[in-house]
């Protein structure tokens, strides 16, 4: 059974179509990255998955309808909505007491072990902690919950690079195992490149691209083209071209590797480059 399965998932706010009938399937044990510009529908999709908003169409998460069974679903799902949502008045010790008291799958000793690696004091209030420490605290709580699905909506927004690196390292090393599924949305596309197993681009409420990272690496090629081969390269119809230090860097979709290797230096594209390429591409029919 897929962890998340959506068919025709649609959400309209007044006259704005936030999600335009998307189909989605996330298998167990995958780490999916949802990338998209602001207003693309990422947060709406996650809200629907987490039972925070109603929707049209079909959606099941771990076999349940999230809108109708949110509180039961939250035993198996944890999420970090944003770096800043922990209540500012609460003490770390009170937070631990509360989560331990209401969540059947919370391991308090584990959370305290994670916190012991930080400089966060048990008696501090959240408002006394820096942004990075709040993120560490929230992550410590979430990683101590034995959930089947973890959803992270821009979890490292505004954090410095040390915290961001530590965040994903902890997540991969201390939390992720093949039975857990993680869904991440982020603008910091580069740093999740090595973390993801699956990729999804979303724009204006629709899924623009969907592939596994293996597919991504075999299908898309980036070539730094030698100046004398530029015309030949253009004839192969790259999906994107940009100048870098006077040379042309082209992105190819499904091109033959040997053919392209003759034109210049071939390398793996970054997700960011592919994202820009696809977003800038004229829409079908135009």
């Amino acid at each position, binding site marked *: *059974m*897929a962890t998340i399965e959506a068919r025709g998932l649609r959400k309209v706010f007044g006259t704005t179509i936030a999600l335009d009938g998307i189909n989605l399937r996330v*298998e*167990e044990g995958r780490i999916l990255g949802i990338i998209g510009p602001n207003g693309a529908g990422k947060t709406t999709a996650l*809200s629907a998955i*987490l*039972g*925070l*908003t*109603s929707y049209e169409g079909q959606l099941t998460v*771990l*076999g*349940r*309808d999230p809108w109708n*069974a*949110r*509180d*039961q*679903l*939250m*035993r*198996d799902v*944890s*999420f*970090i*909505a*944003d770096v*800043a*949502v*922990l*209540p*500012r*008045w*609460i*003490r770390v010790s*009170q937070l631990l*007491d*509360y*989560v*331990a*008291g*209401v*969540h*059947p*799958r*919370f*391991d308090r*000793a*584990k959370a305290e072990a994670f916190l012991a690696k930080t400089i966060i004091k048990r008696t501090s209030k959240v408002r006394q902690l820096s942004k990075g420490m709040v993120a560490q605290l*929230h992550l410590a709580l979430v990683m101590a919950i*034995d959930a*089947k699905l973890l959803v992270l909506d821009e979890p490292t927004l505004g954090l410095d690079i040390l915290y961001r690196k530590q965040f994903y390292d902890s997540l991969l090393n201390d939390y992720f*195992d093949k*039975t857990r599924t993680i869904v991440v949305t982020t603008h910091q596309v580069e740093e999740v490149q090595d973390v993801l197993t699956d990729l999804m681009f979303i724009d204006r409420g629709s899924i623009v691209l969907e592939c596994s990272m293996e597919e991504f690496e075999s299908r898309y090629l980036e070539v730094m083209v030698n100046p004398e081969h530029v015309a030949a390269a253009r004839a192969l119809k790259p999906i994107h071209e940009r100048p870098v230090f006077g040379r042309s860097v082209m992105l190819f979709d499904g091109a033959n590797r040997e053919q392209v290797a003759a034109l210049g230096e071939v390398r793996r594209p970054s997700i960011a480059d592919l994202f820009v390429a696809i977003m800038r591409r004229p829409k079908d029919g135009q």
Partner: protein
Amino acid sequence: MNSPSNAESGPGSATPATTTPSEAGASDPGYNNAATRPFYWSVWRELWENRSIYIAPLAVAVVVLFGFMISTYGMPERRRGVLLMDPAKQRALIGEPYDVAAMMLIFTVFIVGVFYCLDALYGERRDRSILFWKSLPVSDLTTVLSKASIPLLILPLVTFVIIVATQFVMLLWSSVVLLTSGLAGTTWTRFNLLEQSLILLYSLIALALWHAPIYGWLLLVSGWARRATFLWAVIPLLAITIFETITFNTTHFIRMLGHRLTGFAAEAFDFQGQHNPDIHSLSQLTPGRYLSTPDLWIGLAVAAAFIFAAVRLRRYRGPI
């Protein structure tokens, strides 16, 4: 320590779409589940978040005690004078500061309750922490009920304890002041702390039940409004009152509101034809009559409706 060993073998053995597992630890096979007490911990959350629940009445109690202590200057002479009057007058005069202390604390706690309710479902939306609370397996019903329990259960309890403690300290103090004149016992005989405490307990319960729809209304407004919760709570009531006066030249609505604020006393107590609210004996309590007053049950039904609506609102409303 929980070991996340998973007896399920993979995508084939699906988590069943369950019917209604109870909130306290229904288990999927293979996962350890601790027993949970969501309601208990949600009430604690409210107490941690809103310390005014106990700090405000404590502060008022301290002020009352301080004022009382100052007022006992010259007490022995005044007491001798009072003891010459008839027993009913004695009881009234000697008990007065205690009744005043109790009423001030009850009034304080009512204000605390009103402002608590106005913020209860609003604060968590405004600071976006609702996204954290909703990430935990606590239902909207449990959360709203835990918030409703503050003005209906916790505040009356806190008030009761603080009032009785304050009155006890006042009694001790008055005994100390009167000790040398040999009149120390006269306060204790005219103001029977045990009987008065029982009357107080009954009054607080009766009052909480009577005011339930007020708190329900405020909770509903706090769950709905995006700003200025106080205005949203008061102005519609004002608007209805004015509309009724202008259109029908009647005052039913405002009188209903006034009745809802103060009307419980007429049904809960037997004033024996007197006009002053001096309840001095357990025999003046009329729980039977009170429980058969239709207005009480209508109020409770309205409170339940408001709370039910607040639960639905919490489900639909996200951060502001």
